[in-house]
């Protein structure tokens, strides 16, 4: 029956076209990268320096750290003339093959974005000892060819926590209900997420020991609907400031805060653009700077393996300029706390206080 053959052919075509679409996205990135690299026309050795970037499953659309790593790479492409290539992981099983592919292609530096890729990097870096690797958020110390960028995000978590704690005590700010409740939404219960949250708890409790903090995990970095639902729950329980630490899931939470007329605090990047009246500040994690710096060091032959820590004192973490909703007196108190953290007068633990 000829229709049968037709059907098989059609199935194959659909499958193939999907593959083509997948590749299309990847080549698109590369093309853009090459163009900028040519534009600067750096020295000959610079043009041959190749950087591969593998995102975790959050992808480049996460409005957060994958996106920032890409921003860092783009900056390196335009300013250092390196040649960048990006691939977005669709599943955790993609990590090893994608890292391997870049290493095999002769990329000088391969960047793995995210804690979730730890094992993959450990495996591939052993197989390709001549390739340099950068992993964001995970300390791998025993490899001569791996550098780990670690962010003390408990410090910026502390600052936004203090700001939230002070804000929710204010009277007369629209949307602040005086119930002494704050809401936190975590993507997953993993250290890069919980360190932010730990700081938030400590900061909020420092300025208001009686504050109640509701913490929920979405168990996803991509599920906006769940992020929105959890935020709605927390708002219904009296939370008037929501702090989502959950990548793309958090954009749903910010949306819920906006709809309910309460406030939110962004994470990783300055997320104020998502809802200008709602997002009063953001806890920043300079993944872009870290990525750029490591690319630069590697390109100049100054690659240092081991852990590189980014914190308040080297601007590796910080907070975004607060909106005008936040009273100036609060901004000043938060700035004072920042100074105290930098001087070592306050140390912030990366662990969430027990009993929570």
């Amino acid at each position, binding site marked *: 029956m000829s229709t049968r053959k037709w059907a098989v052919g059609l199935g194959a075509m659909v499958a193939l076209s999907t593959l083509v679409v997948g590749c299309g996205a990847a080549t698109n990135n590369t093309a853009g990268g090459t163009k900028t690299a040519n534009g600067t026309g750096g020295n000959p050795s610079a043009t041959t320096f190749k950087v591969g970037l593998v995102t975790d499953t959050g992808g480049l659309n996460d409005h957060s750290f994958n996106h920032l790593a890409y921003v860092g790479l783009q900056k390196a492409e335009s300013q250092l003339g390196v040649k960048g290539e990006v691939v977005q992981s669709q599943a955790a099983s993609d990590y090893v093959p994608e890292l391997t592919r870049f290493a095999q292609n002769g990329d000088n530096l391969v960047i793995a974005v995210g804690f979730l890729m730890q094992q993959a990097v450990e495996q591939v870096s052993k197989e390709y000892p001549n390739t340099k690797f950068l992993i964001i958020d995970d300390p791998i110390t025993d490899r001569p060819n791996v550098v780990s960028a670690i962010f003390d995000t408990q410090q910026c978590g502390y600052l936004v926590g203090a700001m939230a704690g002070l804000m929710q005590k204010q009277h007369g700010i629209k949307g602040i209900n005086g119930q002494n409740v704050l809401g936190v939404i975590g993507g997953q219960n993993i250290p890069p997420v919980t360190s932010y949250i730990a700081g938030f708890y400590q900061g909020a409790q420092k300025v208001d020991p009686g504050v109640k903090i509701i913490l929920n995990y979405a168990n996803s970095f991509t599920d906006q*609907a769940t992020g929105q639902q959890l935020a709605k729950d927390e708002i219904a329980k009296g939370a008037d400031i929501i702090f989502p630490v959950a990548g793309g899931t958090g*954009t749903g939470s910010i949306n819920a805060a906006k709809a309910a007329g309460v406030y939110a605090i962004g994470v990783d990047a300055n997320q104020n653009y998502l809802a200008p009246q709602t997002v009063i500040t953001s806890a920043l994690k300079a993944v872009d700077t870290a990525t750029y710096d490591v690319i630069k060091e590697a390109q100049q032959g100054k690659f240092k393996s081991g852990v590189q820590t980014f914190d308040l004192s080297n601007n590796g973490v910080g907070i975004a300029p607060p909106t005008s909703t936040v009273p100036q007196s609060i901004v000043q108190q938060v700035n004072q706390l920042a100074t105290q953290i930098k001087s070592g007068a306050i140390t912030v633990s990366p662990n969430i206080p027990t009993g929570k």
Partner: protein
Amino acid sequence: MSFLASPQLWAGTLSLAVPLALPALGGTFSERTGVVNIAMEGIMLIGAFFAAACSHWTGSAWLGLLAAMVAGALIAWVFAWAAIRLAADQVVLGMAINIFGAGITAFLLNTIFGYNGTPTSTPSLPNITIPAIANVPVLGWFFHQQSVLVYVMLALVIAAHYFLFHTRLGLRMRAVGENPLAADTLGLNVWRLRYTGVIIGGVLSAIGGAYLSIGILNSFDVNMTNGRGYIALAAMIFGKWTPYGAFGAAMLFAFATSLADVLQGNVIPTDLLSMLPYALTVLALAGLVGRSTAPAADGIPYTLER
């Protein structure tokens, strides 16, 4: 058990049921006419994307919804053509549509809007509150600040039941799903009825997707359905291929999800709680509900040796 009196639990249940009930209803239409449809996930994604994109381009969320329905109908038409006209394997085809939907929407999002996603100015469909319902004790909890699509979904469930079981066309569609040869012998156009079932299914799934992007939010994100199309598939089977059953199953799954959300922060570990809806899916399908019998000709292409 004080959490059971939390209005948010019930509002969350109804809200989370929409993106399960609509595709489950869509699948019911398709499978009742005898075409196995596991493509809900992919169609939802396509619906969600075109809803957000057209909502942004036209400035009207309603036109966005319309665009989602058209896109859903188109992709369902392609599916129907291959499944019915070409007698392709329907499960493989459904899977292909799912993968295609995930790929094409991610590609279009990044190509058209870039990595920052759809603009934040994208309009969304309104929430509506009907005072007559909102003030009823208990029932009002369900309807607190719900999207207009929640009401549309409820209306569609009732309409679908009436259509499938109380109209002539509905009877004919069910007939070609049970015994297409007999139906053909009696002069029914099997292929046309199957096309109708699959395309209605596509439109319903696409509305389910639009609910995610412009119903409760105002943006599209890669893979934002997060497997809801597959849960809908389970809801359809659990609901024994009936509209009310599909709705009931969707409500049960949504309740489990909402319960997991509300119970967080108590003594039960989060990971266990988030397992709840899926564990329930397995239990339901493992026979707790008794036998679910699919339409007799479900999944069997109808070809005539002419």
